[in-house]
C-alpha cells in the first residue's frame, strides 16, 4: 500500500518556487486572520508524488485498460489528440471575460457546436452552458417553468417521468420545484400510453423521457406520447443520455420534443475521468429559446475593422436571450470539454450516422453472441432478455433472475466474476423494472473479436460453482468491498492521530 499521508520525503516541499516580488511595505494578512496551524498535508518530494499516483492509477480500471460495457454510460474510446488540443494555451489559458475580439476562436467553435447539435437534435437553439447531463435537465425544466410563468400558466406544477427513467430526471425536476408524477412502464418495458393519458392534464408542465429508453428499446409510440402531452398543453423533454443510438437516424425534434439535453461526454467522448468532468448542453425549440441561460454564441457580418481579427467570413459575438433564466454555471460552461467534443465531432462530420449504426450493430451483435455462447455450453436457461424485442438499440438488458432462482447467482455475482476476467462489469440493478438486471452497452469502438471473447467469458461465469462465484473477485486489487461497514463506520478522511 502507498498512503499519501505516510510520505515524508521532502524537507519542505516537493515543489520549489521562485522568489516573490519585492515590495516596499509588508505584504501581509490582518493579524486576526493569520493562519495559526497549517494544513496537515504530506511533505512529498516529486519522485514520491509521481510514484504514489502512478501506483494508484495501476489500481484503477479505465477504457484504456479493457472492455467497459457499462450500460447507459457510453464508454467509448477517447481519441488522444483531443487531450493535446485541450492543453493548447488558446483554451487552457483563456479567461471567459476576455473581450469578444480576443475570443473569436472560442466563439466560432461554440457557434459551430451549437449549430451542429441543433442539426442533430432537430432543435432551434442550443446553449453549451450546462456542465453535466443532470444540470442540462435542470436548466431545461427551469426554462419550461419560466415559459409557463410568462404565459400565466402557473398551475403547471407537475412533471411526468416513466418509472424506468434515470434518477436525475425526477431529481432535477424536483430541484426546480416541480411535483413528480411517475408512470409505470408496460410489461414489455415500453411507455404505457394509457397511463400517460390518465395523468396528462392542465397541471402538466412536462414529460421527461429518454428514447431509446433505459432498456435499450426504441419507443415506437413516441409521437403518440408527444401528442398526448402537447394536447394537455405540456412540453416534451428528451433525456439525451442515449443519443449515441440515433444520431443521423432520427432526432428528438422529429419525435416531437420541445427540449433536449446532450451528454457530450458520452456521445462526443469527453473522457469521464472517474466521475467527471462532463458537458450537458441543451437544445430547445424556438418558443423556449428566449428563456435559455446566456450568453449564447451568435454571428454576423464583420465591420471593416473587425475583418482583420476575424477567423472566417463571420464576426462571432455573445447574445443574451430576452427572458433568460440567468446562469447555471458562473462562466460559459465547460469550455475545455466542449473543445474536446468539437474535435471528436470534426472526426466524424456527416459520418455521425455511421457512428450510431456501429454502436447499434455492436450492441445487437453482443446480445446475439451472448445468447449463442450460452446455448453452446448449455446455460441459456439461466438468464432472459430484460425486454422482449427483435432488435435492441445501443444497449440491452439481461435479467439474471433465472440464475438467482436456480443457483442463487445474482447479477452482482456475475458482475464480480467478470471483473476477475479482466472486464469492467455492466451496469447492475438498473433499470429497476428488470429483476436482477444487467445493462450492457459495448459502444461502437469495440472490435468483433472483443465482443466474441467477452460473450464467451460472460457465459463461462455462469458455469462457476455458485459458492465459488460468491467469493469473486479474487484477482482484483481488493476483494468484495464491504459497503455496509463503510456506512456504519464512517471514515471520510485520514484520521491523523486525533481519531
Amino acid at each position, binding site marked *: 500500500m502507498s498512503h499519501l499521508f505516510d510520505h515524508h520525503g521532502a524537507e*519542505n*516541499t*516537493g515543489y520549489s518556487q521562485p522568489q516573490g*516580488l519585492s*515590495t516596499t511595505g509588508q505584504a501581509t*494578512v490582518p493579524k486576526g*486572520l493569520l493562519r495559526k496551524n497549517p*494544513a496537515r*498535508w504530506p*511533505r512529498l518530494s516529486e519522485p514520491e508524488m509521481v510514484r504514489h*499516483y502512478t501506483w*494508484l*492509477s495501476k489500481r484503477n480500471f*479505465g477504457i484504456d485498460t479493457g472492455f467497459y460495457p*457499462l450500460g447507459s454510460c457510453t464508454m467509448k474510446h*477517447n481519441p488522444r489528440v483531443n487531450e493535446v488540443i485541450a492543453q*493548447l494555451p488558446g483554451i487552457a489559458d*483563456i*479567461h471567459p*471575460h476576455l*473581450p469578444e475580439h480576443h*475570443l473569436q476562436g472560442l466563439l466560432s*467553435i461554440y457557434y459551430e457546436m451549437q449549430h*451542429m447539435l441543433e442539426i442533430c437534435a432537430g432543435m432551434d437553439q442550443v446553449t453549451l452552458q450546462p456542465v453535466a447531463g*443532470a*444540470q442540462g435537465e435542470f436548466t431545461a425544466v427551469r426554462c419550461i417553468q419560466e415559459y409557463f410563468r410568462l404565459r400565466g400558466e402557473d398551475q403547471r406544477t407537475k412533471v411526468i417521468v416513466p418509472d424506468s427513467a434515470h*434518477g436525475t430526471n425526477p431529481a432535477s425536476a*424536483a*430541484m426546480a*420545484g416541480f411535483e413528480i408524477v411517475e408512470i409505470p412502464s408496460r410489461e414489455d418495458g415500453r411507455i404505457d400510453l394509457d397511463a400517460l393519458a390518465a395523468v396528462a392534464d392542465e397541471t402538466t408542465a412536462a414529460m421527461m423521457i429518454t428514447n431509446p429508453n433505459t432498456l435499450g428499446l426504441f419507443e*415506437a409510440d413516441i409521437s403518440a406520447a408527444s401528442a398526448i402531452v402537447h394536447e394537455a398543453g405540456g412540453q416534451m423533454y428528451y433525456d439525451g443520455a442515449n443519443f449515441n443510438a440515433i444520431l443521423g*437516424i*432520427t432526432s428528438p425534434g422529429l419525435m416531437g420534443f420541445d427540449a433536449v439535453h446532450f451528454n457530450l461526454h458520452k456521445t462526443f467522448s469527453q473522457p*469521464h*475521468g*472517474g*466521475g467527471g468532468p462532463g458537458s450537458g448542453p441543451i437544445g430547445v425549440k424556438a418558443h423556449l429559446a428566449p428563456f435559455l441561460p446566456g450568453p449564447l454564441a451568435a454571428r454576423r457580418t464583420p465591420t471593416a475593422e473587425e475583418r482583420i*481579427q476575424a*477567423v472566417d467570413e463571420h464576426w462571432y459575438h455573445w447574445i443574451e436571450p430576452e427572458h433568460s433564466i*440567468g*446562469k447555471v*454555471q458562473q462562466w*460559459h460552461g*465547460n469550455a475545455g470539454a466542449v473543445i474536446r467534443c468539437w474535435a471528436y465531432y*470534426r*472526426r466524424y462530420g*456527416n*459520418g455521425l450516422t*455511421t457512428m450510431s449504426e*456501429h454502436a447499434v*450493430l455492436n450492441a*445487437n451483435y453482443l446480445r446475439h453472441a451472448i445468447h449463442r455462447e450460452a446455448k453452446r455450453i448449455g446455460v441459456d436457461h439461466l438468464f432472459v432478455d430484460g425486454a422482449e424485442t427483435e432488435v435492441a438499440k445501443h444497449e440491452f438488458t439481461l435479467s439474471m433472475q433465472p440464475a438467482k432462482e436456480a443457483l442463487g447467482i445474482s447479477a452482482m455475482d456475475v458482475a464480480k466474476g467478470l471483473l476477475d476476467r479482466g472486464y469492467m462489469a455492466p451496469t447492475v440493478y438498473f433499470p429497476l423494472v428488470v429483476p436482477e438486471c444487467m445493462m450492457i452497452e459495448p459502444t461502437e469502438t469495440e472490435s468483433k473479436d472483443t465482443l466474441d471473447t467477452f460473450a464467451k467469458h460472460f457465459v463461462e461465469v455462469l458455469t462457476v460453482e455458485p459458492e465459488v462465484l460468491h467469493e469473486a473477485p479474487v484477482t482484483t486489487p481488493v*476483494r468484495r*468491498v*464491504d*459497503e455496509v461497514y*463503510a*456506512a456504519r463506520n464512517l471514515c471520510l*478522511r*485520514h484520521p491523523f492521530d486525533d481519531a
Partner: protein
Amino acid sequence: MVDQLPNRGRELEMLREMGFESMEALFADIPAEVRFKGDLPLPEPQSEEEIISDARRLLGANLALGQRPSFLGAGLYRNYVPASVFQLVTRGEFLTAYTPYQPEVSQGMLQAMWEFQTLVSELVGLPIANLSLYDGSTAAAEALTCAVRVHNRKASQPNTVYISALTPPDKRSVMFNYCQGAEIEIRTIDHLADGSLDLESLAEAAGSCGVYLEQPNPLGVLDENLVRVKEIIGEHTALIVGVQPVSLGVVEAPGHYGADIVVGEGQPLGSPVTGGGPLYGIFACSQPYLRLMPGRIVGRSIDVDGNEAYCLTLSTREQHIRRHRATSNICTNETLIALMGAMHMALLGPDGLRVLAERNLQACQAAKEALQATPGVTLVHDAAHFNEFAIAVPGNAAACLAFLDANGITGGFDLSRWYPEHDDRILVTTTDQTSSADIAALAAQLALWSTHLEVKA
C-alpha cells in the same frame, strides 16, 4: 472516422450472423415518420492532422493570458500547474474511467478522492469534504439549499438566506436558480466603505437558515469582521464561507472561526483557467450537515479479507437511489479536476502552500504600491487584499480598459458589469504569475491614460 471504428468492413459478416441482411434491419423499429431524410447536413469527416491544424488556427486566435501582461481574474486565477500533474492525470486508468461503481477495480481513484477529501478538510478546517461539485458558484448555491434543509425547522426566518451584497451577479443568478425551486428567499448584507462587512446589517441575518460570505471578498478584501460573524448569527444559522483556496496558506481556515460550510472555486489549486471550465467546486462541512449535503463521498472500509479498501458511501442522499427526494441532482461531477487539485496539493505540502500564498500576497502588494503612485489612479478600499483590488480611474473604466488593451495589456475587470452604479472602477487581479515588469507596464499605461484624458479635457 474510420480509425475509430474497428468493425468497418465487417458489418455484413456480423449482420448475417444475426440473420440480417442490412444495417437498416437494426433500425426497423424506428417509424418512418420520425426518420431523418437524407444525410446530415454537416461537413466531411476530418483526419487527426486536419483537426489539430484547425484547432491550432482557431484557438490561436484567442488571446492567452500568458501572452502579455494580464490583470483579469474576478474569480478565476492564473497559476502554474506543475508538469507532473498534467503527466499523471492523462494516465488512461484515471482519464478513461467512469464513476467508481465497482470499487474492486476502482481503488486508485477512490483512494485518491478519499485523500482529496482529507486535503480539503485540512485546508479549510472542517471534518467533512465531498469529492467536488461543478464549480465555485454551484458549490455556493448548493450550500445555501443544504443550509435550509438543515436549519429550516428551527429558523425564526425560515426559507431565508443572506448573502454578501458584493456577490457577483453571475454567481447570484446561479444561486437564484438553485434556490427558487425550494422557495428560498435570498437577501443581502451590506459592506462598509472600506470594503468590510457591515456587522449591523449582518444582525438582520440572525435566525435565518444561512449566511454566505467570501474571504477574500469579491473585491479582494481580507475582512477581519468575518471572524465575528458566527457569534452574531448564532448556532442555528449556517455560516457559509467562500474561499480562494490558495489564500488559506496564510489566511485562517474558516472552519477555525466558526464556518459550518466552506465552499470555493478549486481552480487555483491544480487547474488552468480553461475558459471557465472544467473547474471544480470545493464543498466541506461540519458533522450536522453530513447527511443532507450534496455530492459523492468516499469512505474507507474493508474487503471480505479484512484488508483496507475504499468505496462510495452515504449514497442514499443521491439521485440514483433517492430520485426526487435526493439532496441534489448532481451525478457527473469534476473528479478528474479534483484529482489534479489533489496532486498539486500533495506536491506543495503545507510549506509550499504558504510560499505560494505569500507570492500571491506579494504580487498584490507590489501592484497596489505601483498603482497608488500612479497619477490619476486611486485605490477604492484602504484594506488588506489578496489577489485583487478595486481601483478608480479617470474617465470611464470600459474606455480605459480598451485603451490598455490597444496598448498590449489585459487591464482587469470592468466593475460596472457587477455594480452598475460605478462606471470608473476596475478590479485589478494579480497572482503568483504576475511579474514586476507586468506591473510596471500597467502603471505606465494607466499614467498615460490619465495624461491622455487631461489633454483631451
